């Protein structure tokens, strides 16, 4: 699969790769893919917005996400690796398709739930964890982008809370329907082992078993992501005992 953003290999100046570089390469590849997918989602969202301000917001978000992808790619180059991307990889493709179903229904609220509540929870939590352990500017970039992504969530939260205030039961049912679609896929991505075969993003074998070498683990990234998701749902006002059941029913 051809990367969606080009990586200028001539800028790679590292004389020798650190032993952990191949691990960061795959971590970055997942992050870049996620950012590019987010950019595509926001671009699609702009196409169903009626309000010119909303159109502008969505396009601005798309641009910001592309910027994040470029910053991650640059961090890869700094450590001497080419971090690729593949938005057509099996799980990412499924996530994109779920978002496009909302687009097809011109469901602006559904789009926000998928992108801002579900995908961003995953991004914020996992970037923050990586930011704590990754060395130097790589870690700083992950941490900064995690903080920026969190601002996206704040932006959407007010809209979604207002929507829930109109009809809480209807809203919660919608979130649950989307949860079953999107979070089931995310849960498979976050599983400790990739049981459905290669994810089509890692450049070689699955990176998950090697994460301990950089003080990470798949279980930790999953745990942090699900915790962030539950807290975000709490902030929306969905009863905690309800969301606990949703998360408990996800595949592992």
């Amino acid at each position, binding site marked *: 699969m051809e990367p969606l953003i080009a990586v200028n290999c001539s800028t790679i100046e590292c004389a020798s790769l650190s032993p952990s570089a191949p691990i960061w390469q795959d971590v970055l590849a997942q992050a870049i893919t996620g950012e590019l997918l987010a950019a595509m989602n926001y671009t699609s969202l702009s196409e169903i917005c009626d309000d010119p301000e909303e159109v502008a917001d969505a396009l601005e978000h798309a641009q910001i996400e592309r910027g994040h992808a470029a910053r991650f790619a640059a961090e890869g180059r700094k450590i001497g690796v080419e971090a690729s991307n593949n938005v057509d990889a099996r799980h990412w493709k499924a996530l994109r398709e779920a978002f496009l179903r909302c687009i097809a229904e011109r469901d602006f609220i559904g789009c926000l739930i998928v992108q801002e509540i579900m995908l961003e929870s995953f991004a914020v939590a996992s970037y923050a*964890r990586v930011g704590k352990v990754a060395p130097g500017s790589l870690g700083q970039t992950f941490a900064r982008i995690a903080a920026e992504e969190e601002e996206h969530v704040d932006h959407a939260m007010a809209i979604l809370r207002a929507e829930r205030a109109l009809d809480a039961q209807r809203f919660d049912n919608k979130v649950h329907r989307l949860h079953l679609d999107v979070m089931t896929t995310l849960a498979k991505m976050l599983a*400790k082992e990739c049981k459905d075969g290669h994810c089509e993003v890692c450049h070689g074998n699955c990176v998950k078993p090697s994460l301990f070498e950089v003080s990470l683990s798949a279980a930790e990234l999953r745990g*942090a992501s*699900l915790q962030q998701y*539950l807290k975000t749902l*709490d902030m929306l006002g969905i*009863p905690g*005992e309800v969301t*606990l059941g949703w998360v408990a029913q996800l595949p*592992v």
Partner: protein
Amino acid sequence: MGGSVASVVEPVGAIDGTVGQVDFALIGHQESWRAAADVLAVLRGPERAPLPDDEIKDILPWIPPRAVCHVEVESIVGAKARGLYIDSFIPPDRLEAAYVHENIARVRGAAACAINAEAKVVSLGGFSSILIEGNFNQLPERHDTVFTTGNTLTVAFIVQGIKKMSALEGRDMRRSTLLIVGATGDVGSGCARCLAPVVKRVLLSARNVERLSRLATELQAEGVQVEIASDLLENHLQQFSADADLVICAASLASPSLLLGRIAPDAIVCDAGYPKNLSPSAEISGTKVFFGGLGQITGGLKFTPDFHGILNRHPFPDVVHGCLLEGMALALESRFEPFSQGRGFITPERVEEIETIAARHGIYLAPLYNAEGPLNGGPDCQTACLADVPIHRREMPPPEDMHVELQG
């Protein structure tokens, strides 16, 4: 454990989507991984395979405190109260001091859930009360919600259990020597004040020598024969164990690790810990062990979703630990007050007051039991030997025996 678990913001909402104030909230945590697995299994539903043990251990520590189910309790005089069971999701193997800050944050998070639900009175179950009893100022801003450790009713049921077991065994308590392990805790000191006047001699064991001395002085002023020992000095505890014929284990232990030493073969031992105090390898063969501090609701108890037999297991229906029952009893009585707070303030008068309230609503001492099952009482009373009970039996009785027992 990663991000802060204390920042939970949870609005109240019922399973059916309705919103409204609840009378009480019960804050608890699971005593074992088996119990935690069963809670998650109910949440997953019967159509999904239970999570493997390793996945449960990976996932549970990340779950923020939150309501697990709705609870309705009914009094024998027709009063009803509705509440929530809120789990702090303290992992069963993280009760040690090393996790104290994380666990306090979890209890604070659970307390925030209760406050958000506008609970009028909140009981702190298990380690929740131990973490908070001396630090009520660490709870979030409370509005109209009051908190009780529930320890007074726990003491009431321990004392009732000791008296009942002594009667069943034909003991004259006035000739007995009572050992209390964990004597300076809120529960231990409350038991000491209630039972010291009715026994011949009291042996107090705890870690903090200064607090021990203070309690001993208080009891001696009442004419009680008292001896103390820091249980850090194992020889002292062993000597005390050999001398005592009544033993209350009320120490704040992270796991069942109390060995006691060579105990009198016909001693009556009340294990009132949550988690249980007594180690499976304790040399207590021949002693009469029962689990103390438990009461039984006779008016009615309902969980939504149905967690009967899951939140804990017990050979009798509708059994709940005293500390949680205290909140329910206060709610049924419409006495929304912080009945038990702080450490060391439990008096016989307060114990009598709360047990009267509980009894008025049909909440009585639970039938006595231990890890092997119910104790029938009388001369043929089943002899307990925890050392002979496999650990898995202690954690999970056969499904047909399982009824509900909430911690406290």
